[in-house]
């Protein structure tokens, strides 16, 4: 019986991974298609990569998207870390329920609603005080607002799983609460903040709907550019772009996974050493 069951699970796992990966593998294969019609194979060629690299629109969109992603990730990590810290370590404070509600709401809010509400708000604000100009600023603000929610959740779960003894020990030894924060809590939070930064960076690079609502004339992010092209059908240069993105992400995830694994092994070794002595 046991054997039959694990065969079933193995089959499901293989099916699941095939389902997840075959479409992506095909994207990559067709990027090397000589033919202009994507699903019909016309021989091997790298011409679409050349088309891609020579396209100034693509470069402009990549650079805008990267700029937004970096600024977004940095602010979202700071704001999200503060929010997570407040929610886990401060106990009750006035407005806590509203605060925690507002923090988690963007996680599940449909993107069309977030996008529409921010756009209407920006237009209203512009009429009132003459700021902000729609484009880089508005997209970045919109991205920070939903990214910080993800960071707050990561920080919250790290803080909740972190024993408070180190912080308490520092306090007992006479460190002021602020000193405890800067010398103990923040260094322990660093891996969580790095994960939050990377997640915010990716979320921002990936967002189409909210950026489409909050963008202004001339500010075309990479997803907006891709979307405007694939709406009209399949395009081999988009396959080339997809291949590059998949390659970069895979390398990134592998490095991150390797670092995590090394850290886990190091911790295990430390524990072992501690147990021996």
């Amino acid at each position, binding site marked *: *019986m046991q054997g039959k*069951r*694990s065969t*079933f699970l*193995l089959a*499901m*796992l293989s099916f699941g991974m095939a389902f*997840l*990966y075959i*479409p*992506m593998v*095909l*994207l990559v294969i*067709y990027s090397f298609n000589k033919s202009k019609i*994507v*699903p*019909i194979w016309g021989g091997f060629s790298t011409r679409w990569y050349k088309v891609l690299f020579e396209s100034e629109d693509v470069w402009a969109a990549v650079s805008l998207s990267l700029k937004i992603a970096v600024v977004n990730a940095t602010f979202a990590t700071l*704001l*999200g870390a503060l*929010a997570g*810290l*407040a929610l886990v370590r*401060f106990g009750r*404070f006035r407005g806590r329920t509203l605060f925690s*509600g*507002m*923090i*988690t*709401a*963007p996680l*599940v809010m*449909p*993107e*069309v*609603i977030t996008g*529409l*509400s*921010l756009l*209407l*708000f920006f237009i*209203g604000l512009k009429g009132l005080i003459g700021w902000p100009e729609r484009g880089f600023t508005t997209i970045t*603000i*919109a991205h920070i*607002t939903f990214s910080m929610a993800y960071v*707050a*959740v990561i920080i*919250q779960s790290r803080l909740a799983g972190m024993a408070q003894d180190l912080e308490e020990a520092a306090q007992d030894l006479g460190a002021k609460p602020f000193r405890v924060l800067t010398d103990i809590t923040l260094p322990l939070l660093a891996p969580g903040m790095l994960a939050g930064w990377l997640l915010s960076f*990716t979320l921002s*690079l990936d967002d*189409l*709907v909210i950026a489409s*609502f909050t963008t202004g004339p001339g500010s075309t992010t990479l997803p907006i550019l891709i979307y405007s092209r*694939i*709406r009209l059908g*399949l395009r081999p240069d*988009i*396959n080339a*772009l*997809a291949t590059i993105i998949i390659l970069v992400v895979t390398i990134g995830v592998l490095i991150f*996974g390797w670092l995590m694994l090394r850290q886990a092994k190091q911790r295990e070794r430390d524990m072992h050493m501690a147990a021996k002595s």
Partner: protein
Amino acid sequence: MGGCGVSELGALKRSGVEQVTEMAENQSGSLMARLAEKLQSSWKTVVVAVPFLWLLIFFLAPFFMVLKISLAESVFAQPPYTPLVEWVSEGILAIRIVFDNFVFLWEDNLYLNTYLNSIKISSISTVLCLLVGYPIAYGIVRSSPTVRNIFLLMVILPFWTSFLLRVYAWMGLLADQGTINSLLIWLGIIDEPIRMLYTEFSVYVGIVYTYLPFMILPLYANMEKLDISLLEAAADLGAKPAVTFLTVTLPMTIPGIIAGSLLVFIPATGEYVIPDLLGGGNVQMIGRVLYNEFTANTDWPVASAVAIVLLLVLVLPMMLYQHIQSKESDS
């Protein structure tokens, strides 16, 4: 951003008064030291105030803006809606609230059907995700630690690559001239391509494909904490695998099932990209109607009303998810 800065200064100023008197006594010198001293006494206020204000300004205020516009009338002007509060004449303030937009949504069958259709599509997709995701999550949990990490990484990896491009990949697979049709014709199973792209079927495929990790990961997190010895106990006591599954495994994984289902159902209901790219004009979902109402028809009040109603539809599942999240972080 301006608002945050002001409040920070306010907090600093308040505590500053106490600080200055202290400072005068111990003469702790330089400006930097004094600033650090001030920051130390009020840092808790700052930590809460900065993200709090950000969310009040950029999350709550925009929401009320949508509510306000949904209660206005569409006019041909800039901005294209009537103001909520207006000076009628000297000193008389008129508040104008119209529910016409909501009445319009209710009476027009197009909107009602679109809401129902969105809920139908996202519900069925959620069930499909669960049917596919559950055995995968269970398979990952039951494999050896090394294999487990590799599979987890493989489930997470697509999540980090572009959502848009993963939907695009299916355009290539499902098209009339696409990979699946070509393969089936080549194998001699069919003579003519089956129409798959721009149908409801392709929307289901797209949603299940892109949202599957959102189902697997909460399920995995839940199953990881499962006590395997309970399963072994059930088996030792003579329970058949099917019985063990129904009476032990399934009940214990219900929190994971609920969390994963909500994470798929809520965003899928308001989905815009998938019905647009894979459904073409043939599949009406409310996210797409909202977007078109706003951009093509420039009817802001109706678009806002559509958003408010969508929020009302989703408010229960959203609150349920928040409840689970907060319970999770407390334990």
